[in-house]
């Protein structure tokens, strides 16, 4: 089969460097790719051998991961001619995976992830204020408008990811763009805070708008500081969601709403 070759897709099938618990890392990566729409419902996955080579895992590990994905209902295997492994986009399962991942991580992990994202995105915002053309600024604004009116939380998460990736492209930097792709594959494994508290979407939209305004005014210092502050706020949301799970009072209804 011919694999799509966009850079986000390349990131999906890039080698895993997680070390331990590799089959679980494969499961998380595939889950996140489905949540972000990078793998579509009904899409055929590469063969076991190809997948193992791309992800740099043993075929044993890969089979374990596929078995787990089948058990979760995110992958379906058909035998015979035209057979293979096919993606099943199950929002309820993805929400459960995100909950499980959140509980698995400590608040320190969430802070680390937020720190790196803030570093990358704030640097991109500063450079974008200096380097983004008027056309590019208009495109950023358009993305933020679409985020504000996105109908589903799935759509919100994907458009939010596009905002950050586009911001890095506005910085004229391939490396920052790739970093954002990788970060969103990790962030996509976690719950999307507005799914738990819809009002947070307004905070995100207002945060992005303020950054785009600063970029338009060529105010690099503000673009950077606003991006940093916004991502710090989002890190605190994740930490709070994590801490809420401590009492074992995970709101099942809330998690169900995560991707719908």
């Amino acid at each position: 089969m011919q694999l799509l070759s966009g850079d986000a897709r390349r990131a999906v099938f890039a080698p895993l460097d997680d070390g331990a618990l590799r089959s679980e890392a494969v499961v998380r990566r595939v889950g996140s790719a489905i949540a972000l729409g990078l793998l579509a419902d009904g899409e055929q996955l590469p063969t076991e051998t190809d997948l193992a080579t791309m992800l740099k895992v043993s075929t044993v590990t890969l089979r374990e991961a596929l078995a787990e994905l089948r058990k979760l209902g995110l992958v379906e295997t058909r035998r015979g001619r035209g057979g293979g492994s096919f993606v099943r986009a199950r929002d309820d399962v993805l929400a459960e995976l995100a909950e499980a991942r959140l509980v698995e991580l400590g608040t320190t992990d969430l802070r680390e992830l937020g720190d790196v994202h803030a570093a990358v995105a704030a640097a991109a915002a500063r450079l974008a204020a200096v380097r983004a053309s008027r056309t590019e600024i208009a495109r950023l604004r358009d993305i933020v408008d679409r985020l504000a009116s996105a109908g589903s939380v799935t759509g919100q998460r994907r458009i939010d990811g596009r905002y950050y990736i586009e911001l890095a492209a506005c910085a004229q930097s391939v490396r920052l763009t790739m970093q954002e792709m990788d970060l969103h594959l990790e962030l996509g494994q976690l719950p999307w805070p507005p799914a738990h508290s819809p009002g947070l979407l307004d905070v995100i939209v207002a945060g992005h708008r303020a950054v785009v305004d600063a970029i338009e005014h060529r105010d690099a210092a503000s673009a950077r500081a606003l991006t940093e502050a916004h991502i710090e706020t989002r890190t605190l949301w994740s930490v709070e969601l994590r801490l809420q799970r401590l009492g074992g009072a995970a709101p099942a209804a809330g998690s169900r709403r995560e991707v719908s």
Partner: protein
Amino acid sequence: MTSGRAGEAARVAAAVSGLVEQVFATVDRVHEAVLRSVERSGLPATRWVLPEGVQLLLRAPGQLAVGLGLVVAPRAEEGLPLRLEWWQADPDGGEVHTLEPDLRPSSLGYYDYTTAPWFDVPRRTGRRHVFGPHVDVHGTGRYVLTLTEPVLAGCGFVGVAGADVPVRRFETSVLRRLGGAVAPFLLLNDEDRVVLSTSPGWLVGDLLAADAVPEGPVAGIGGTPWRLVLVDARSRLDA
């Protein structure tokens, strides 16, 4: 002395222009192949317009382009979806692959090319365009210059024929063509973005404010939206 500087500007401009025309010669070959195919068998909805052999252009000696092909103008009413007929050589000069970007609007990785200037400008103006440097996000993922021209057939605007040249390769080629000693210059695109710089005061990708474009002998690069400006020598190493 001024005439010497103007002469240098003209010499650099000629070198840049020569390389640009070399790439457009390749784009012309792609363009002709599209027209021949459309004339013979129309614009098929599912089958590629370009014959396989076009990819061999990437193997031509001295080829600057690492990617080339046709990007089709979608016509939803005729069942003609977004489509790229694009070949790309691996960065290490190895294999040639077809580019298969994600064309589903619902995906985080959606390659929305119809709004990209390299597609939109030739469509609107009916003229060739040089876009970049730009990060071709969701497409090749590379930092490239994209050279395109509109393809018009009996059925109207078919799409754009084009080629991608990596910024690094373009820089190396220009400098090699100019030989050893080069006056400090900036090559600017129509957005006043630096395409190439031989002065440490400006970096490739920098966007200059209108009042920040340095004064100096200027030479246009014919057939492109670019211009060349000679700048004063300055060094940051002399502390």
